[in-house]
């Protein structure tokens, strides 16, 4: 307590969270997205084709349905690409920053001393591309939990170790 000082904080000198250069997700994450979206589209296509063959009322609207479906797929891919491009993260000394969102840009910041626990999730497609997802949980419930997908597995492991170390140091 002897070297305790309490000077006024110069608020203009504080590190700015909004100016931190963020790391974008691993390029393989786009491939992962393509595969998972592709599988979904494939399933929908099969269902649609079957429907057009067996439901007679639909036969007259074949072109309409096909065009609609193609537009849907294009929009889906476009939106996925945009969402992928918009996601970025940064691990600072004292907190983690994650940015996402197409129409609205949401930036979430979680200080390490508020993290409850961390999980590493590997989906089967993600594992194929050597990726993992880091899940960070706080006490604030679902709305303040964070999922950062598309990080290379080895790096994700390292980040997790770093996080766990940071959490511990705080107490």
């Amino acid at each position, binding site marked *: 307590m002897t070297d305790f000082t309490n000077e006024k904080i110069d608020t203009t000198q*504080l590190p700015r969270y909004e100016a931190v250069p963020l790391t974008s997700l691993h390029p393989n994450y786009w491939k992962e997205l393509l595969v998972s979206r592709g599988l979904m589209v494939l399933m929908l296509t099969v269902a649609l084709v079957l429907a057009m063959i067996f439901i007679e009322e639909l036969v007259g609207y074949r072109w309409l349905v096909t065009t609609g479906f193609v537009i849907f797929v294009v929009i889906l891919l476009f939106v996925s690409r945009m969402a992928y491009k918009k996601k970025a993260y940064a691990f600072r000394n*004292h907190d983690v920053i994650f940015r996402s969102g197409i129409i609205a840009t949401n930036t979430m910041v979680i200080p390490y001393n508020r993290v*409850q626990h961390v999980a590493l999730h590997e989906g089967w497609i993600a594992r194929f591309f050597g990726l993992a997802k880091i899940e960070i949980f706080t006490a604030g*419930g679902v709305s303040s939990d964070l999922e950062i997908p598309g990080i290379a597995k080895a790096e994700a492991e390292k980040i997790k170790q770093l996080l766990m170390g940071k959490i511990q140091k705080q107490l």
Partner: protein
Amino acid sequence: METHFNQPQRQSAIGVLVIFLEMIFVLLKNIWPIVVITLLKAEGKSVWVGLLIALGIFVYFGVYSFLKYRNFTFYIDDNTDEFVINDGIINKTKTTIQLHKIQQVNIKQNFIQRLIGVYAMDVDTAGSDQKEGNIKAVSHALALALKSKLMENEGKAVIHESETEVAQAVETTIPFLKINLVSLLKIGFTSNYVKSIGLILTFFFTIYENLHQAGAEDLVDTDRIKVLVDDYSLLYTLMIFVLTMFTIIFVINVVRTLIKFFDYTVTKQKGSLMLTYGLISTQSTILKPEKVQIVKVSENYFQRKLNVLEVKIRQAISGEKKDSKSLIEIPGCNRSEGDEILKLLFHELPQKGVMLLPNFRRLIFSIFLIIILPLTAYFTFGKWIEPLAFHYANLALIYVLLMLTLLLFGFRNYRLFVSENHIIKQSGAWDVDQEILQIDKIQAITTSQLFWHKSLNIGSLTMHTAGGNITFHLGQFDKINDYVNLWLYEIETSNSNWM
């Protein structure tokens, strides 16, 4: 088994059976009607097909539960004091929980587990709704050993502390605040209109519906009502109706408030508050100031004139008692008593510091959403589908005027106050709420900005706490960012206890 747990270990081998049976059980619960129908209607051939499908499902479930069992491991990492759970066959998840973050460990048994003689364990930390660690099948000895191992830390001490405090609750009681009958009556008269109107409407509609269905329309003498309506003007009848409604609302409100909060007493003891209230059954709750996350002080025009306010307190939530104890109401204290409570909860009276205003686009947007959209729908409906709708144009006008007033007042009251230690968000049109949040209770911060608002420099701010979120929409964004940076700095440089 050994009591070290520092090597990854599986559940009891019999756990395969638990997983398997649980899956079968869930499946049967969902599809039993189909099974019964097929069995009843079955002919020779379809019985075989059904049996084959059942066999297939059995084999699939068997393999699945075996793999699930093989891939589920847990251990305590002694070097880092972490509890680690590995789960998943194809999608793998590795959950790491630091021992000192564990708040509860529950040992449980459901029907299947009792049948087989194993126990389930839930490991719970603060916050998130689902159980973080869920082990399905371990022996009782192992469960107890693991539990004691997991709870060898402060988390356990904290729980015990709160228990002992409950035990000592009777010893020292200095009434700190007693809400008298007059205050309760004031609150009963001036709050919860909307809730009561809803209650009354449902009540009347149920009665009407029942009468209607019973074919007992004769009971309600329609002729006499008609005569009444003819005799007096429609307006007069309407006025009487509204007056009756309001009287009933008042009576119901007052009675409800009295029954629920009769003899509301707040006593102070060793830094925490004990609340007792209730006419028929007496409730008592213990409130620890450090668990308080958000305090909401509400007041409307009448209440301001009568000098009463309502205080609602949101606590940190954890474990089983999530819903029941997380919200605490203190109805009908006067302003100075309210200040006393705030002082006790926050160790100082929260000041309204710098004021942040919302952008006028917020008003325009809500007008668009609540007035223009419904009105357009109404006019299109009247013009193209049912011209009769225009008979009620008066109602539409009343709606527009009412909503416009509400929105204007709502916008005028929408404010964010930032002081050194607290953030106060003010909102509401009639009931003006002030949500007070201590800065070090913030768990995470989200800022949000629509892309066309970037050049306008407006954006939104959400503060997440263990007792819920507070959002301020469309404020001046660079100012918000300044504050976010400052708050982050404050949170990250101190190790305050947020619960």
